[in-house]
């Protein structure tokens, strides 16, 4: 009798498990999100967005749905824990299939039937980014000088693969977010290949004056792709010269070594910052930069 009962329960369990997979096998496609709803979701994201926020969208969006994002630099990648600790993250997600990763949003807003906007506040010490080259990259941020100091090209032409190319210059001179293997990790950064006999110059907008108790800081890092370093013994050093207004405020050297090289500089409000990138020999200098202007509390080291 006991065996019969157990067998009946097991049969029920098998039928139940089969039913779950049958439901997956027989269900229809996930309904596309109506354009109006996507537009509303993106508009809400823009409304709550602050400078320096990391923008994330569901990996389930089709390209047609993604059109609503326009130039908004949102990506479908799960934010790393260190990003969640340091940055505010906005996630536009599918309500029926939530993205894995960030938990406990500070704010959740349903948008229509299919979408939800979640806001995650940073869990660690807060620095407020006011400009991030990676996410705020646009046309006219990069120019090529050849020779150094003489404008040759403004990089305003859209590239098929994303970012902006520089008319009249080599195709490998452009501004675009890239993912390179740096220090053994896949790192997001902005392509900044230097050119022999010229300079690649990024211009960061003039920051506004900080509130009392805050400092304006430029966090600058440069690195070369690992295989460009290891495959080019004797490869040339890349120099990043930072200038604010007409004042040279600091210089970061990126030697032919694996990994990131970093520099922090204090900034003054009201003047744009130029990052002029040069090298004596540009062979396999697959170089990439990150640059953020942040408001840092004065008591934070």
């Amino acid at each position, binding site marked *: 009798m006991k065996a*019969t009962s157990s*067998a*009946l329960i097991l049969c029920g*369990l098998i039928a139940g498990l089969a039913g*779950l*997979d049958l439901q997956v096998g027989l269900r229809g496609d*996930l309904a596309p999100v109506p354009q109006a709803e996507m537009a509303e979701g993106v508009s809400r994201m823009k409304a709550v967005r602050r400078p320096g926020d990391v923008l994330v969208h569901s990996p389930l969006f089709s390209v047609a749905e*993604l059109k609503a994002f326009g130039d908004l630099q949102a990506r479908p990648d799960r934010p790393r824990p260190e990003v969640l600790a340091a940055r505010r993250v906005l996630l536009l997600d599918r309500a029926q299939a939530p993205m894995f990763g960030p938990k406990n949003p500070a704010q959740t807003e349903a948008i229509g039937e299919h979408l939800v906007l979640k806001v995650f506040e940073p869990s660690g010490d807060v620095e407020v980014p006011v400009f991030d080259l990676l996410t705020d990259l646009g046309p006219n941020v990069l120019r090529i000088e050849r020779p150094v100091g003489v404008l040759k090209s403004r990089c305003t032409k859209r590239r098929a693969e994303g970012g902006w190319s520089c008319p009249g210059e080599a195709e490998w001179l452009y501004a675009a*977010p890239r993912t390179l293997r740096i220090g053994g990790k896949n790192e997001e950064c902005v392509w900044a290949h230097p050119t022999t006999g010229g300079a690649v110059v990024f211009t960061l907008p003039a920051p506004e004056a900080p509130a009392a108790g805050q400092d304006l800081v430029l966090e600058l890092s440069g690195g070369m792709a690992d295989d460009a370093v290891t495959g080019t013994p004797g490869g040339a050093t890349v120099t990043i010269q930072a200038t604010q207004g007409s004042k040279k405020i600091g210089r970061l050297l990126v030697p032919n070594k694996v990994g990131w090289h970093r520099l922090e500089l204090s900034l003054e409000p009201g003047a744009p910052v130029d990052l002029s990138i040069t090298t004596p020999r540009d062979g396999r200098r697959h170089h990439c930069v990150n640059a953020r202007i942040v408001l840092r509390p004065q008591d934070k080291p």
Partner: protein
Amino acid sequence: MSSRRAGQIAALIVAGYLIFQLVGLKTVGLTDDDDFYIPAGIEYAKWLGQALSIDTSAFSKAGVDRAFSPNHEHPPFAKYVFGVCHFALSRWLGPYDSARVGTVLFSTLSAALLFVLAIFHLGARRGLFAGTVAVLLLLTLPRYYFHSHAATLDVPVAAMYLLAATLALLAERRAWAAWATGIAFGLATATKLNGPFMIVPYVIFAFLVRRGAGRGKTQAQPGLISLPQIPLALVSMALIGPVVFFGIWPWMWFDVVQRVPEYVGFHLNHYGIYFLYFGTLYDKNPFAPWHAPLTMAAITVPLATSGLALFGAWLGRTAVWSRIARPQAYEESYKREGDLILSCLLHAAVSVAVVCFSGGPKYGGAKLFMPFYPFFCLLAGYGAMRLYEVLQDDLRLRWLPVVATGLAVLASLSLQLKFGGYALSQYNAAAGGLRGATALGFERQYYDIAFRDLVAWLNDNAPDKTRVHFLPNNWEYVRTYKWYKKGGELRSDISVTRSPSAAQWVIVTHERRFARYGNDLLGIRDKEVLMEKRVDGVPIFSVMKMR
């Protein structure tokens, strides 16, 4: 029912399995590995032709190196089969589907072996029941079905591993099988690196069931560390296996001192391959965590199949334990049953554990532990049979296990049909299907599959001389589309260009394991979408008009 009768019915079902596999041949797109193994197979088969016609130049170092340098990092057995099938069938099936018939044959061999194992160890009637369920579940297992059509080494090694394991188990009772085990083990080892690991569960099995059988006398209840008699199959594997392995791999005939370490070293220091797991990207240093293969199995094998297999293991525990605790007691039929279940459990566990704990790479969804699946399906077949047996005397209830098992096969089939040629995108309900798995941070496809419905769509819709470029990993499609052109499946004026700026159409394959994917989306999302393939509501590829 006689064993002969059961064998005839089993042969019919295996024939059906073969037909069902062949029908699917042209639905499964080429993978990036096809372009490694098919050309290698063609070269190896040419060499085989030379060798069989006693052309002595075939046996020179130059002749061997010329033939076997393509893809010499993997052993040759399956590639011989691909090459022979290519030459035998390409007139009817074209250059690549002909070679892929080789994999279908290996897959069919695995189905036949499930019947052999079941009928030999469970008897004609019970074995036919368990074997039929096992074969149906294997046939409808979406990921095994996909890999059964790719000219790659994963299903071939699953079949050859199963052949060696089957013969080793038969060798417990048939002396001829012991010698055949050595040959099969050599062939499995000469198929892919999973092959030699078959010896680990076999030695554990032999130790457990042969305790007390040594020194010419039997003990009904031996001590745990009583020395077992060394099985003839093990001797055969140790002696004949290496002879077969080296014998059929001429690449190893010369410079053996250099080439054997080179072969082992390649796999010990395998380059990293991207693997997306819970939203985190792994390749090398570190590889994905140890539990990744277990998770992949748990979320891809249809749930009811897993349920039946786990019940099978549970319901077979008494037979297994009887075999371990008192190896020489009990009647022969009960011993055989215990041997079968114990052997299946050990092989299934070890074939996954090797990937989990060997310190090697973990990637490609479920492909690295293909030998696991036939054993798992046999456990499921056994579970279904035992459920039926419990209720078979009750006329009111005996249909229930049949219905439950039928639902399990139907559920598996529904996933198979839903995903079709997109079977590497299949996830079960535990992950929420493909849409749930994608949101969870699993890869929506891998193996850079050159989907054939995309090829057909391009043929129908692309303007003359269209240049296409694939994002984010164009280089793999350059390789596979070359085959489609060669086979006449792709219009000759359509080309895959290496430069995205030269392309009129860009095809985004939405493979998130490539870190550049997010940036690629940013770059193309303002372009016109010409076509988007969605499966379970998830974009698989999007064709974008660039100009």
